[in-house]
């Protein structure tokens, strides 16, 4: 009995916090837009019994999904989101790996402090940090002033409201999610393995590629998914730091919901986004599973 309860807890959790909301969104995506509250039809009216349910079902259709294919905007937004998410994941990896490596190789007594510094930004609101970036990146911002002061540039750079700003924002925001799993993998690694590799004829560099990288693979993969998955649907960063030409599906979604008040189309956009994400999520789960088995 106790076992049953223990097993039931995660499933109930999943049911309440994932499956039920998913079904609600799915249902809305199959509905039609309406000038009412909530702004879609049909609504399920249980007072009419079976007939009401049948009427409700017949009101559902795939019109909104079909609509997504008629307008170039949507698939372009998905593609551009994929591109931005992929590129920024790679950039986060390039920044995150050396940091994680540095922390894992730092003297023991330093490591908690360094990890603390990685997590520290989470103590302030995400929105405030993004606003701070606006202050740093705009034409009169700190970065431009600094570069002008150094004499590196003579004209202020336009960074804010471009894709560059979006990349900076995503890399900055998700860096800890990359650093932590890679650090966890590197920290576990026995340093005598590198010595053994050198003893057997590897240079430092090839020992890094042949031993360090394969042994931190699970951390790298986990970090990449932890960055890629949320970055794909990211909305705040592109809408605050990005410009009018920055096309991301999160932004489209937001506009459908709040500007157009077209809940059904917005829900359809969300459902498609979820379907796209299912592939990396399953791959991520598999990676975690393989890692657990390897540690056996």
């Amino acid at each position: 009995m106790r076992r049953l309860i223990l097993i039931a807890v995660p499933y109930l959790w999943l049911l309440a916090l994932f499956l039920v909301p998913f079904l609600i969104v799915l249902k809305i995506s199959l509905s039609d837009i309406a000038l009412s509250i909530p702004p879609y039809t049909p609504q399920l009216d249980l007072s009419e019994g079976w007939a009401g349910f049948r009427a409700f079902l017949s009101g559902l259709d795939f019109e909104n999904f079909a609509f997504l294919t008629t307008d170039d905007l949507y698939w372009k937004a998905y593609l551009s989101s994929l591109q931005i998410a992929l590129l920024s994941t790679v950039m986060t990896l390039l920044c995150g790996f050396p940091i994680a490596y540095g922390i894992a190789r730092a003297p023991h007594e330093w490591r908690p402090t360094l990890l603390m510094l990685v997590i520290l930004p989470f103590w302030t609101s995400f929105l405030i940090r993004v606003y701070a970036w606006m202050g740093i990146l705009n034409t009169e911002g700190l970065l431009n002033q600094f570069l002008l002061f150094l004499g590196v540039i003579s004209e202020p750079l336009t960074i804010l409201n471009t894709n560059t700003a979006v990349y900076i924002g995503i890399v900055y925001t998700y860096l800890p999610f990359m650093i932590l799993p890679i650090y966890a993998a590197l920290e576990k690694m026995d340093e005598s393995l590198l010595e053994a590799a050198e003893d057997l004829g590897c240079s430092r560099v090839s020992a890094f590629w042949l031993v360090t990288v394969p042994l931190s693979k699970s951390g790298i993969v986990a970090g990449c998914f932890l960055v890629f998955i949320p970055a794909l649907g990211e909305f705040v960063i592109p809408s605050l730091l990005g410009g009018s030409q920055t096309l991301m599906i999160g932004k489209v979604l937001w506009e459908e919901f709040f500007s157009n008040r077209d809940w059904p189309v917005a829900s359809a956009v969300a459902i498609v986004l979820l379907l796209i994400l299912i592939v990396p999520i399953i791959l991520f789960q598999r990676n975690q599973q393989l890692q657990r088995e390897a540690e056996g």
Partner: protein
Amino acid sequence: MTQTVFAPWNDPDAKPLIEFKGVTKAFGDFVAIDDLSLDIFEQEFFALLGPSGCGKTTMMRMLAGFESVTSGSILLAGKDIGPVPPNKRAVNMMFQSYALFPHLTIWDNIAFGLRRGNASKDEIANRVEDMLRLTRLTKFARRKPHQISGGQRQRVALARSLAKAPKLLLLDEPLGALDKKLRQDTQFELMDIQEKTGTTFVIVTHDQEEAMTVASRVAVMDEGKLIQVSTPDVIYEAPNSVYVADFIGDVNIIEGAAAQEGESVSISWAEGQPPIRARSTRSLTPGQKVHFAIRPEKLSITAERPAEAANAVTGKVLDIAYLGNISTYHVELPSGDVLKAQSANTRRIARRSFTWEDTVWLSWTETAGVVLEQ
């Protein structure tokens, strides 16, 4: 056919393969290796013996290139290897912690070093198969290190370090996790490999029996210093100090005051007991405090006083340890000292001649023990 004795250390013209010249290694202000000088010759099987923490692994790591010397220098074939990085040294090491690559199969672990050279695929495959056969791991070639037992892992580490057939092979407790049978087999295997390949071996071991079996010479260390470096028989029969005598094998140590006449020494050690008669080539000052060390198997145990024994004492059997092939008798002397004597069990245990509380005589010749000054 005359068999020449392999003893390059006695040949003044022989060039050592490895020379430690006044090597000191300090970690912070802790001195792990203290002004140590040592020559190891080509084709030697050199054993380092000593208590935990005496600096054996540190010496190995300096040879392999993972630890720099604080002062002094190490020469390999006449060249200072200080500036040579580990991957450029013709030295392979078997790590005390094995350091197997967890992401690679046993096969790939063994092939790792070979792949760094310019051997062809076939050569590598052949060599790996040979190593697998040698260490009896063929069945496990496709497994990962976490899927095999501790002893098997040790054999993988051994195979991996042997695979490159290095000039100098460093083995840090290579056989610690093996059972006795496999251990003996592997010891002979190692000696065989050594004979076939002419590789020079430096082996660290806690097991003095192992050191005695495999080594051409043994170095006994303590706190970063070499106490004695010699062939196993000299270490055993003629230790240079109480420390070495005590560290290697079982020994009776008797303290007394020496009186010397030529090479004969008589040691007065207890009231009412005749002095011990022994021999020593060293010159001792009259009345000097010395230790007399004698191995238990050098004492013969009899019921009557033997007529012509140089030394004989009587006592009571306190304890008997039955070890199968031999028995150790603990004999308490009237002075309260307890001496250990060993005798071979040539008869069945039921027909043993002595039992608890029996009065017995222990006797030994003049040359059976050694006189030690420290």
